[in-house]
């Protein structure tokens, strides 16, 4: 897999002495959507800001599309767009002017048609001549996305793009991000909404206390660490699990009215059929079956709490 961003041995100690990143190695593949997950203060924003040139690394090397982000910053940065976590905009500017400004700042010649495209893509064309201070915060967020896209970057960083954004706008953003990916843009996003990562990401990285503790294909991760549960609603309560069923990892719940069977999604032959047959043989009747799969959120919580 060709690497679009390559981080090697990245360490950051802030002036306060606080160690925000510890020896980070990370490769982002060309054209993927990479979700960076981690609790508050894990170092997500620090990592992104260092790659984008806003914070200085203490040690380590970063390449963006093969260009060193410090020594060859011009080539590296002109390929990168950033939507930062904080909403900061020039309140008195007008939408179209501020987006054109961004395009120029990133070294592109003025192009009114392109700016119109970008503004339409984020549904801000009708507000093109509005002062930014008159916009709602969801619209401001979109202004910032438009600014980040104005110079047609190949790499887009979205630092919590959907924080404080309503459901509809979030769906719009997801659609937009997918569209960008389809056009070949590499996207790195951080989020606290695990469903977002689950829905969007090709790969997931988990960062905790300044260390990357896991990077995995989302599908693989869910398969490897995901658990399935089968809940069996019994007709008559049991006081204990019958010895005939001892070889299954069963738990008795709901005052003896429910049998809970937990199994890894990895082992394909999960033995549900066998279990149901045994139940039948033991004369245990049931009225309902309910199966569920753990979400990325469960996986994430168990990963992070395991390290704590």
């Amino acid at each position, binding site marked *: 897999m060709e690497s679009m961003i390559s981080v090697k041995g990245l360490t950051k100690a802030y002036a306060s002495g606080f160690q925000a990143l510890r020896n980070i190695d990370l490769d982002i593949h060309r054209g993927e959507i990479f979700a960076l997950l981690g609790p508050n203060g894990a170092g997500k924003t620090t990592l992104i800001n260092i790659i984008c040139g806003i914070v*200085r690394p203490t040690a380590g090397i970063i390449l963006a599309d093969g260009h060193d982000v410090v020594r060859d*910053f011009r080539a590296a940065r002109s390929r990168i767009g950033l939507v930062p976590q904080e909403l900061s905009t020039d309140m008195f500017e007008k939408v179209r002017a501020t987006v054109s400004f961004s395009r120029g700042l990133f070294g592109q010649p003025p192009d009114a048609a392109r700016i119109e495209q970008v503004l339409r893509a984020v549904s801000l064309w009708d507000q093109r001549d509005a002062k930014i201070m008159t916009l709602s915060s969801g619209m401001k967020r979109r202004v910032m996305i438009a600014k980040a896209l104005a110079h047609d970057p190949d790499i887009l960083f979205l630092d919590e793009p959907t924080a404080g954004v309503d459901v509809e706008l979030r769906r719009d953003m997801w659609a937009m991000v997918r569209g960008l990916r389809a056009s070949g843009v590499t996207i790195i996003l951080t989020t606290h909404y695990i469903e977002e990562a689950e829905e969007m990401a090709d790969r997931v990285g988990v960062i905790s206390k300044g260390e990357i503790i896991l990077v995995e294909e989302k599908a693989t991760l869910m398969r490897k660490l995901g658990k399935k549960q089968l809940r069996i609603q019994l007709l008559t309560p049991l006081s204990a699990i019958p010895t005939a069923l001892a070889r299954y990892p069963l738990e008795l719940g709901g005052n003896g009215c429910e049998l809970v069977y937990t199994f890894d999604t990895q082992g394909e032959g999960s033995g549900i059929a066998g279990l149901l047959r045994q139940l039948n043989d033991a004369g245990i009747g049931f009225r309902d079956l309910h199966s569920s799969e753990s979400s990325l959120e469960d996986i994430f919580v168990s990963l992070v709490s395991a390290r704590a």
Partner: protein
Amino acid sequence: MNLHAIRAIYGFELSRWFRTLGQSIISPVISTSLYFVVFGAAIGARMGSIDGVSYGAFIIPGLVMLNLLNESISNASFGIYMPKFSGTIYEVLSAPVSAAEVVLGYVGAAATKSVLLGLLILVTARLFVPYEIAHPLMMFGFLVLTAVTFSLFGFIIGIWADGFEKLQIIPLMIVTPLTFLGGSFYSISMLPPVWQTIALFNPVVYLISGFRWSFYGVADIGAGVSLAMILVFLSVCLAVVWWIFRTGYRLKS
């Protein structure tokens, strides 16, 4: 060279200025007019001429310098302080621009504004007093050099300041007194000898003296010395700005 970026920053800063054009132009015009009413007409009528120049005409170069210094510093310091304060500086920091390009955009815009303002004050002054400019090219050269130098100085203050008070304190506590004591309204040679020597430590004396020479061909200090002093101050400011970007001082953690 990222010319598009320089143009973007420069244009952004000028349009910020045009949004408040009324107040940016009216207030210096009014204050200059007031100076002329008070110093030129009321007091000046009782003053003899200095170095063969009528008092009203004598104070014009000093008045322009006074405004030029204040405007350069406040424009440039505000221009870079605001994005730091509002957080929009992230975009400049993450853009493919070099320090030189950032400085050209911000300082260039601030200097442009104050040069235009200086010219406007000269035009306003003409309504009150007739005067001639002996060396127009040198006059313009002094105007531009001073505007650039003090815009750079303002830029440094804007980066150093981490609150609005700090933004105001240097202009208020240092620059304004130095300008008033720098011979805007009198010739240094009118001071007692001890104070004449002390005045030579005031950089503004050189600015005003050189500038006045370009008008009337007479000066407290040789024009060459004045020019050299401006260039020294310009170099110092450039060196500080260079250091700021090299270390990321107050810009990057």
